[in-house]
C-alpha cells in the first residue's frame, strides 16, 4: 500500500451545514382552497341547521344526532382552515417544514365546513356512517386495481390494462358464479381471468418487447370488445343460468361491528372487503419485507443489475405481473359477486383508469395507493350523500367533486412522483 493512507471521508455531506428548504406549495394551496371556500360562503350563504347522524341502530350506545347552526359552523371551520394556512405560511417563512397535521387540520375543517354548508336547512340527517361505509365500498375495485397496478409497475411493467383486468374479472365471476351458484368459485375465476389478461400483457411486453403502453391500451379495448360480445351473445339470451349470481353475504365481526361509526364501516362487510384490507398489508409486506419483493423491485428499478446477480428478470416480471392480474381480477369480482348479482356491458366504466391514477397518486406505494383509492371513494360518496340530503349545488357539479378533489390533491400536495426507474422499458438481453 502507498504511504498516503489518508482515511477517506465517509459520506461527506453527512456533516454539512443545512439550510432549510423553502417550498411554499402547501401554504399556497391551503390559502387558495380556504379563499375559495370563503368565496363560496359569501356568494351563497345558507341559513338553517345542519344535522349529522353518527349512530346506527346496532351500536353499543347511541350517539344522538348532532345539530349545528350551519353558517356558524362553516365560518368557524373557515377560520380554522385560514389559521392552518397562515400557520403553514409561518412555518415556511421560518424555514421549517410544515408538519403533516397542518394540512390535515385544514382539510378536515374545510370538509366539515362544506358539509355544514351543504346540509344547511335540510330536514334530513347527514349520516356519517353512510358516508364512510359507502366510501369504503366505492373504493374497493379502485383499491384492488391500484394494488394490481403497484405490483406490476414495481416490476417495471406499466399496467394500463387494469381496466381490462377488472372487467375480465367481473365478467368471469358472473358466469362462473352463476353456473356454480358459489360466489367463492366466481371470485376464484375472476382471479384467473385477471391473471389471463396479465399473461397476455406479459407475452407481448416481456417476451416480445412490445411497447407496454400500446399493449395496455389495446388490451382494454380487446377485453371490452370480447366481454361485450359474449355478454350480448351468451349472457343475455340465457341470463337466468349464466348471469344471476349469489352474492357474498355480509359477515359482521362480533362485538367490533357494534362500535359506533367505525363498527358498521369497517367490521360489517363482505369477505372481499376484509380481504382488501388484508391485501393492502400483504402487498406492502411482500414488496418491502420479503426476498420476492426485493427481487421484484430490483427488476423494476434496474433489471440489468438484477440480471448480473443471477435474478431471472423475465420470470420475476411474469411472476409479479400474474400476481397483479390476480389482485385486480379479484377486484373485478367485486362488481358481480359483491355489489350486484350480474354482469353488464362495460360495467367497470373507467374504474381501471381511476385506479391507475391512484397508483401514481400513491407514488407506487401500496398503502398510499390504497389511501388514494379511498380518498376517491370518499369524494364520490360525498357527492352522492349530499345530493340525497339536498345540496344546493347542481347535480353535475356535485358529480365533479371526486375528480376535482383528486386534481387539487395531486397538484397541491403530492407533486412530482417518481416511477420505478425501469418502468416501460423492455428488458432485452445482450
Amino acid at each position, binding site marked *: 500500500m502507498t504511504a498516503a493512507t489518508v482515511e477517506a471521508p465517509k459520506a461527506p455531506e453527512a456533516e454539512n451545514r443545512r439550510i432549510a428548504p423553502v417550498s411554499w406549495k402547501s401554504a399556497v394551496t391551503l390559502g387558495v382552497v380556504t379563499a375559495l371556500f370563503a368565496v363560496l360562503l359569501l356568494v351563497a350563504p345558507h341559513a338553517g341547521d345542519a344535522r349529522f347522524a353518527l349512530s346506527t341502530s346496532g351500536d353499543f350506545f347511541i350517539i344522538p344526532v348532532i345539530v349545528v347552526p350551519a353558517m356558524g359552523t362553516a365560518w368557524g371551520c373557515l377560520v380554522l382552515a385560514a389559521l392552518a394556512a397562515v400557520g403553514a405560511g409561518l412555518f415556511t417563512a421560518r424555514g421549517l417544514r410544515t408538519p403533516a397535521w397542518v394540512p390535515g387540520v385544514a382539510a378536515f375543517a374545510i370538509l366539515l365546513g362544506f358539509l355544514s354548508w351543504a346540509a344547511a336547512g335540510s330536514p334530513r340527517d347527514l349520516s356519517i356512517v353512510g358516508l364512510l361505509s359507502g366510501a369504503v365500498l366505492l373504493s374497493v375495485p379502485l383499491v384492488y386495481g391500484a394494488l394490481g397496478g403497484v405490483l406490476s409497475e414495481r416490476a417495471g411493467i406499466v399496467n394500463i390494462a387494469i381496466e381490462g383486468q377488472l372487467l375480465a374479472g367481473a365478467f368471469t365471476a358472473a358466469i362462473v358464479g352463476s353456473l356454480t351458484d358459489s360466489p367463492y368459485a366466481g371470485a376464484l375465476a375472476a382471479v384467473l381471468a385477471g391473471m389471463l389478461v396479465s399473461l397476455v400483457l406479459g407475452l407481448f411486453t416481456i417476451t416480445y418487447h412490445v411497447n407496454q403502453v*400500446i399493449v395496455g391500451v389495446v388490451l382494454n379495448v380487446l377485453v371490452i370488445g370480447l366481454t361485450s360480445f359474449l355478454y350480448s351473445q351468451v349472457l343475455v339470451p340465457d341470463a337466468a343460468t349464466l348471469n344471476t349470481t349469489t352474492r357474498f353475504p355480509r359477515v359482521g365481526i362480533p362485538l367490533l361491528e357494534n362500535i359506533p361509526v367505525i363498527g358498521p364501516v369497517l367490521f360489517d362487510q363482505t369477505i372481499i372487503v376484509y380481504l382488501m384490507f388484508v391485501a393492502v398489508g400483504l402487498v406492502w409486506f411482500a414488496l418491502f419485507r420479503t426476498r420476492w419483493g426485493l427481487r421484484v423491485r430490483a427488476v423494476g428499478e434496474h433489471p440489468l443489475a438484477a440480471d448480473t446477480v443471477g435474478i431471472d428478470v423475465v420470470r420475476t416480471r411474469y411472476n409479479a405481473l400474474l400476481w397483479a392480474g390476480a389482485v385486480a381480477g379479484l377486484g373485478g369480482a367485486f362488481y358481480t359477486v359483491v355489489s350486484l348479482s350480474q354482469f353488464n356491458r362495460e360495467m367497470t366504466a373507467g374504474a381501471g383508469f381511476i385506479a391507475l391514477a391512484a397508483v401514481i397518486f400513491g407514488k407506487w406505494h401500496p398503502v398510499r395507493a390504497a389511501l388514494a383509492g379511498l380518498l376517491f371513494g370518499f369524494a364520490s360518496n360525498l357527492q352522492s350523500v349530499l345530493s340525497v340530503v339536498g345540496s344546493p349545488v347542481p347535480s353535475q357539479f356535485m358529480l365533479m367533486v371526486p375528480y376535482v378533489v383528486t386534481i387539487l390533491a395531486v397538484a397541491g400536495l403530492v407533486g412530482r412522483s417518481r416511477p420505478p426507474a425501469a418502468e416501460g422499458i423492455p428488458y432485452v438481453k445482450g
Partner: protein
Amino acid sequence: MTAGPDTEHEPTQDRWATALQEIASARWTVAVGAVVLAVLVGSVMIAFTDEGVQEASVYFFSRPSDTFAALGDAIGGAYSALFRGSVYNNRAETFAQAIRPLTETLNYATPLIAAGLGVAVAFRAGLFNIGGQGQMLLAAAAAGWVGFGVKGLPFPLHLLLALVAGIAAGAVWAGIAGLLKARTGAHEVIVTIMLNYVGFYLVFYMLSTPGLLRAPGSANPKTPPTAESAQLPHLVGERFTLHWGFVLALLAVVGVWWLLNRSSLGFQFRAVGQNPRAARVAGIDVPRATTIAMLFAGGLVGLAGASQVLGSVTNGFSSDIDAGIGFDAITVALLGGSGPWGVLAAGILFGAFKAGGSTMQVSEGVPDEIVLVVQSLIVLFIAAPPLVRAIFRLPHPGTRKRPGAGDRRRAAKKKEVTA
C-alpha cells in the same frame, strides 16, 4: 473479422430465393400477417354468432358440408360487408353510390387523425395525453356554441371563428394538465383522466342549462343545429357526408410533420421527450415546452371536436359527442408510431373499420363488438412482429448477413489505424 464467411461464397444462383426471402422478411408482410391473424379470430366470432352456422352445426356429423357452406357464407358475407361499407360498394347502382363508403371512411377518419395527432405530439414531448375525451367535449362545446349561438356572421368568418373557439377550448383543457405538470409536477396521466370527467359533467351541465348549450325551447340536453354559416362545406358534393374537416386534418398532418421535424419548437419538444435532463442543461425551458406541447396536443384534439360539430354532427349534439374518439386516438397514435404519416394511415384504417362496422351489422347482423376485437388484435400483432413471424414461420430480418452498420464503422477505424 468483419462480415461473415457467407458473403464470399454465396453464388448468384438463386436470385429468386433471395428476393422471396427479402419480401418475406419485410415489414409489410408482418402487417399483412397481423391482419390475417386478426381476421381469423374475427371469423371464429362471426361463425359463433351466425344463425346459419349454428343451425347447420347441429347436424354437423350427418352433413358437414352444410356447416362449411354456412361458415363460408357467414364469414365471407361479413367481411365483404365490411369491405362494401368501407371502401367500395359493388352492389351500388351508380358510381357515386359505389364510392360512398370510401368517403364515409375518410369522414370517420377525420377526427381520429386530428385527435391521434394530438396524442402523438404529446407523446413526442414525453407526455401521455389520456384526456382526449375531455378536450373533445370542451372543444365541441365551444365550437358548437359559436356555431349556433353567434348570429349574423357571414360564412367563412363564422366558420373560422367557431373553429378557433373549438381549437382554443381543447388547447386550454389540455393546457391545464400541461401547466400543472410544469408548475407542480402533477402527473399528466392523473390530471387528464380527471379532466375527462370534469369536462363531461361541465358540458352536461351546459347542455342541461337553458341559455348555455341547450337548444332554446327544448327540454332535452341537446344543442340546436350548427348554423349554415359555421358549417364545414361538403368536400365532394352534397350527396357525401365527407367535409372540409378532412382537408383540415390533412393540413394538420403536414403541419405536425413540420412542427416535429422542421421547427425549433418541435425540436425542443422532442428533446424534452427523449431526455429532459439534457434538454434542461442545453438551455431549453422544460416547463414551458411541456405546457406548450400540451396546448398543441389539446388544440389538435380540439380540431377533432370542432370538425365533429361543424362538419359531421351538424344537427345538434349531446354529451356523447366525443364518441370514444379520445381513447381511440391513443391507439391510433400508438399504431401510427406517433409520427404524423403513421397517424394518418392508422386513422384511415380505424375509420374504415368504423364505416364498415355499420354495414356489417346492418346487412349481416354481425355485432360490431367484433370490429373492436379485430381492430385491437391487429394493433397487437402489428406491434409484435416476432410473434407474427413465429406463427407464419417467416424468416427473421437480418438472418442474412448484410454489410451492417458496425462493419462500416470498423472499416473506417481500420483505415484510420493502418494509415
